[in-house]
């Protein structure tokens, strides 16, 4: 919103020019969206007729000239494919036998193939836990002594069809480790709530990211799991497809506007390529209570993206392999929620964080009409008063001088 982007990781300040400021004050209209205003959104759990139910959720968002496909799945680690096509008629074809075989290539296709404008994927690979008791430096990496991480590929997930809600266009993947020797997840779960939108808007709960019909929202919530330490911090490893040899970058955008997420002046953005391409957007804030407010807000640190080398074998996502083939270079980044001081997961055994995934130009916040309205009145009133007063004095003075000779 301040119109300044920082290509490299790191914090710095940049100032919007006075002209931009002026235009912000003058224009109450929201920024025009390059994508579609509204889309016909349908959610479908694609059944495997030959085997037990599997979690493959297809979100199809049809506009006048384009179709967006979001394919969410918990086969292997939770993952999402996003595919943008330039026709309203493109379809997803799933070959279950191929998808479940070791030779997955071609198991998942969006047809016609030449309509694909952009495609990428995100894989949520591991849940980290750190002991933050003896670290005072919040920005330290790692943020404390690490406990063994949970591999999300080894989680068992509920049946997605049970939580599918066509009214809110949402579905929830809820899972816990298959093998849980410490019984940490006996009363707990990790949930990925996916929501699509048919038009632009803003959720009622912070961080209230502005969404459009081109985006999908993911809320990650860790609830009720017993932490291994008294002051455990949690983190999430997210992997994505690299573009050639380089990894995409995470931009930190500084904004003057924290109306929708009090005291958060930053927006992080991962862009896969030059615009318009795909993007991931999130505010660096997580919450330690269901009632998300400032007192439960945790900082959320994100590491820069790094290429995944052979040192760590990434759990493979069948849907990613099926769509992109098996020869891909992956990049990953880590998100860490909370700091050793302040509120944390330990308060209520609750942690939630949300992000937006989409195609096209990322949504940009504008000053709310209320703010603009108040500013117009508060700056206009004294100005008008000066004008009116000046005129009154001018006229009043004249009258006085007319009467002066009589005196």
């Amino acid at each position: 919103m301040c119109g300044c982007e920082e290509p490299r990781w790191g914090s710095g300040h940049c100032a919007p020019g006075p002209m931009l400021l002026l235009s912000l004050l003058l224009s109450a209209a929201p920024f025009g969206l390059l994508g579609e205003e509204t889309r016909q959104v349908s959610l479908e759990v694609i059944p495997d007729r030959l085997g037990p139910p599997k979690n493959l959720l297809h979100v199809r968002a049809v506009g006048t000239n384009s179709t967006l496909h979001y394919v969410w799945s918990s086969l292997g680690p939770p993952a999402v494919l996003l595919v943008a096509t330039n026709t309203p008629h493109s379809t997803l074809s799933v070959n279950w036998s191929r998808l479940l075989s070791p030779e997955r290539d071609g198991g998942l296709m969006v047809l016609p193939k030449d309509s694909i404008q952009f495609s990428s994927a995100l894989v949520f690979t591991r849940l980290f836990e750190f002991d933050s008791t003896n670290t005072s430096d919040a920005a330290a990496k790692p943020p404390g002594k690490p406990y063994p991480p949970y591999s999300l590929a080894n989680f068992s997930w509920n049946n997605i069809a049970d939580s599918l809600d066509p009214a809110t266009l949402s579905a929830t993947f809820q899972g816990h480790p298959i093998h849980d020797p410490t019984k940490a997840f006996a009363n707990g779960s990790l949930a990925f709530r996916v929501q699509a939108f048919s038009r632009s808007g803003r959720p009622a709960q912070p961080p209230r990211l502005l969404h459009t019909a081109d985006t999908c929202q993911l809320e990650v919530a860790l609830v009720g799991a017993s932490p291994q330490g008294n002051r455990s911090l949690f983190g999430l490893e997210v992997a994505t497809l690299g573009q050639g040899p380089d990894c995409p970058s995470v931009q930190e955008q500084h904004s003057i506007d924290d109306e929708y997420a009090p005291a958060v002046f930053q927006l992080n953005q991962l862009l896969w390529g030059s615009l318009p391409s795909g993007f991931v957007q999130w505010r660096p804030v997580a919450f330690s209570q269901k009632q998300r407010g400032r007192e439960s807000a945790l900082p959320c640190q994100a590491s820069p993206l790094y290429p995944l080398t052979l040192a760590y074998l990434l759990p493979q996502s069948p849907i990613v392999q099926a769509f992109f083939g098996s020869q891909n270079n992956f990049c990953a980044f880590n998100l860490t929620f909370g700091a050793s001081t302040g509120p944390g997961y330990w308060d209520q055994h609750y942690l939630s964080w949300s992000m937006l995934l989409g195609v096209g130009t990322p949504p940009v916040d504008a000053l709310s009409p209320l703010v603009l309205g108040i500013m117009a009145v508060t700056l206009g009133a004294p100005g008008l008063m000066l004008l009116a007063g000046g005129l009154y004095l001018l006229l009043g003075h004249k009258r006085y001088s007319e009467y002066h000779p009589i005196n």
Partner: protein
Amino acid sequence: MEEEEEEARALLAGGPDEAGGGALGALPALCDPSRLAHRLLVLLLMCFLGFGSYFCYDNPAALQTQIKGDMQVNTTKFMLLYAWYSWPNVVLCFFGGFLIDRVFGIRWGTIIFSCFVCIGQVVFALGGIFNAFWLMEFGRFVFGIGGESLAVAQNTYAVSWFKGKELNLVFGLQLSMARIGSTVNMNLMGWLYSKVEALLGSAGHTTLGVTLLIGGITCILSLICALVLAYLDQRAERILHKEQGKTGEVIKLTDVKDFSLPLWLIFIICVCYYVAVFPFIGLGKVFFIEKFGFSSEAASAINSVVYVISAPMSPVFGLLVDKTGKNIIWVLCAVAATLASHMMLAFTLWNPWIAMCLLGLSYSLLACALWPMVAFVVPEHQLGTAYGFMQSIQNLGLAIVSIIAGMILDTRGYLFLEVFFIACVSLSLLSVVLLYLVNRAQDGNLNYSARQREEIKFSHTE
């Protein structure tokens, strides 16, 4: 001791002639109440009189994160600490002048109010030690009973000793000292907290309480100043046969209905202006950390820069306004600059030092130009009531706005809070413009230059 002896000697030597003034020449300048040197000594004491209360007033701002963390409260509740300070003063300031004039007298009044400040700070600290937020609130309430009335007493002392001499300069200097108190607080308390934390081995409500208790030492210092000042004032009364500092005439609350329109406008300017400065500073530290990425120390420093600038600039601006007159124009400049500064903080990511320095300058200018204006529009016998009333409604404004500001911050964030403050300053600006127009229309004396004032004074004495 020495002073007393000299005084006795002077009285003996001077005999009945002392009223004539000639006999006092025997006293060293420092001990002669009619001499400048002695007045400077009194001025020093007057300045330190307010130090403790100003130091402790902004303790919550300096320890915002610690208080919210240790006591587990949100911003709305945190801001209640400021609101509770202001509530008693809504009533008390109204009676502050009255109490000083009619009940306690300036000397006892000052001492009693200083005691309240001390006790209040101790209770505030105990609230921390016992982990009882209500007790902290109660402490701030008691502290508030003393705090603002003490400021009224301080002003009355200033008027009584410096009327017709260096009054604006003295107001300015007193303010400087108060600001130094606030600055020291902002930059010291965080450090003190970390030292106490190291000493006790852990952070927590006890650490907070002990830190606040140590901060309370400044209040004891102020109490000592009040005692010495009372003695010197009494001594001056004996030697110079000067009236005890008070406004003299019968003070009636019904005086309020005689207040003129310009005075009411001055009240509005005052309320709308200060509610956009003090609650902002109360909440400022975290704002600079979150929006501009400052470290905790840097945020404390910038949050106190308004006071840092105010300390040396208040006397300078005081002198400037004394020499030039034209108070309304100065007030207009100050309010407009504050508006600009809040706009910068709200709508730009420019280095906040620019905006905060501007705020500091305009804040000092406003104080020097606005408060003396009251003396031009009320008869002398209503001055105490007018000042008391001005502070009373200022406190009403501060109490309400503190709560509103906390709520806005919790639900709508800093941008909206800044917009709210801009709206307040803008209302203040509107009142200044109106005051200028009313003054023009009524041919009032508010905007006279210093020379015009001199001429009028001269023609009156003729």
